[in-house]
């Protein structure tokens, strides 16, 4: 069977890498990544892709879609998305943020694993992004709490342990998070000093 040529249009390097990594395990896939999208839309059909994967929100998706649709009139008829009957899979793709374009006549059993991989990788990317943001936020919070503790230790002669206990008690009494109280203290101290 001939190689399945999958073109991934994605300016986001990390996500593109994740997708390629997921697809590369299958030997009969050939994967090409287009990272720089500007102005490329008009040439990329020369790559003769069988399946094109684009981020649903990508600003250049419109021009890619137009080219794909227009090429339908030529010798490589292209249909948007998979088999029209597979509503479930397409909904899953849209929810994940992937748009997929498939050359007409490509068998469903060849498309499904590619889409499944893309959907899974898009989700994984989203999770990684979220984890990264959460970790960053947690780090920032810890820094603020450390600064607030330092301020209390200096101003009231407390030990580190007592300074933290005071922050925690205040937070509980006020029904607020420790980091919020710490943040308030740091801001207030900045104003007073």
């Amino acid at each position, binding site marked *: 069977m001939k190689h399945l040529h999958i073109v991934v249009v994605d300016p986001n390097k990390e996500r593109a890498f994740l997708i390629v990594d997921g697809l590369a395990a299958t030997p009969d896939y050939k994967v090409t990544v287009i990272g720089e999208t500007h*102005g490329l839309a008009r040439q990329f059909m020369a790559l003769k892709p069988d399946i094109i994967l684009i981020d*649903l*929100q990508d*600003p250049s*998706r*419109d*021009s890619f*879609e*137009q080219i794909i*649709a227009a090429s339908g009139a030529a010798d490589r008829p292209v249909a*948007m*998305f998979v088999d*029209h009957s597979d*509503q479930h899979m*397409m*909904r899953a793709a*849209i*929810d994940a943020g992937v*748009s997929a374009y498939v050359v007409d006549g490509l068998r469903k059993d060849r498309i499904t694993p590619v889409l499944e991989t893309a959907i899974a990788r898009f989700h994984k990317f989203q999770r990684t992004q979220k984890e990264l943001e959460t970790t960053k936020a947690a780090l920032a919070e810890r820094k603020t709490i450390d600064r607030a503790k330092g301020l209390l230790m200096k101003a009231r002669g407390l030990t580190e342990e007592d300074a933290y206990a005071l922050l925690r008690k205040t937070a509980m009494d006020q029904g607020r998070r420790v980091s919020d109280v710490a943040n308030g203290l740091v801001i207030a101290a900045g104003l007073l000093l």
Partner: protein
Amino acid sequence: MTRPVNIGFVPLTDAAPLIVAVEMGFAEEEGLDVNLLREQNWATIRDKLSYGVVDAAHVLLPMAIGISLGLAPTKTRIDFPLVLNMNGNAFVASPNLTTALLENGNQLGNARAFGNALIKLSRSQPIRVAVPFLQSMHVTMLRHLITQLGGLPEDVFDFLVSSPSKIEQLLTDGDVDGFMVGSPWASHAVENGAGHLMLTSNTIWQGAPEKVLGMRYDWLEDNRDTAMRLTRAVYRAANWAARNPNSGVVSEILSRPQYLNVSSSIIENNLLGDTVMATSGQTQHDPLALQLDAKRIGFPWQSAAAFVAAQNAPYWNIDPTLAKTVAHEICRPDIYRQALESANAPLPSANQKVEGSLHSTTEVPGMNNPILGPDAFFDGKIFDPA
């Protein structure tokens, strides 16, 4: 009990009825908990609406017809009980194209002179024009303009699709010679000095429906009460937004980062009908350039949808009779009447009219005094649906 409804929109001034329905409490009054999803591409609206990721959306009228005809990833019937606005699009030309058009007899704001200049200029090579979507009033009206003047749209235009908020960049980068786009993005480009405004879409067809409140047919039929509440909320919001004294508040709301993320003064000028034509500040006042007044323009006329369907059918390789039939089906004057009777909305007794026959404000038969604005075509064309 509040009912959750997911609604998709593209950042444009004509999304105002949906945004105002949420922000000013019209949706809440109807017991709806509306979740607005902003999408930059019309293709994403099409996909999310047709696969049911959203229940309803801000939709280009030709796109609703296109999806219902199966010109989309999946064939889904998209109905609409309400038109959100009439016109609001404008053509912006690069400084070079502006000069070339003027040398070929163009006069600002004159559709006939503009169309003839385009035809003359395109004899050497087609004019590269960016549009937000191919199944759009932008494309429909530009093709109508050229066809009626004896030109061939496929020779005159080389269309390139781009999301509305990115379209200005294409002109700045020299990827296109001009673009047709909705408010506020045309004015935004002119204010930035990217190009000059050649005309507003109402100079081609005064009665052009632009965006509609689109809903999946299945969803509408399964949730008729919710659909009617939504229709009422959006109808009220549109009328509120169209009232002159409210334009300041409406433009402030729309300008927020989560909506249009653009200066409120540009939006307010467009709401008031003031269009800046050139970077020199030359302004044209025309209240018909963008109409949101649902009392006057909200009714889903089957004849207008049929005209749009018939115009597009040859380009879509669709039988015109089939296109018109589907356009009729997806207009839902029945839902409009049922939902809006209690809102004292004007209810015309007919579902169709002769398009292009009104040259001034006219009272038509029906309940609550229906009054229609002018709906003439630039060339005096009459479309009789019968």
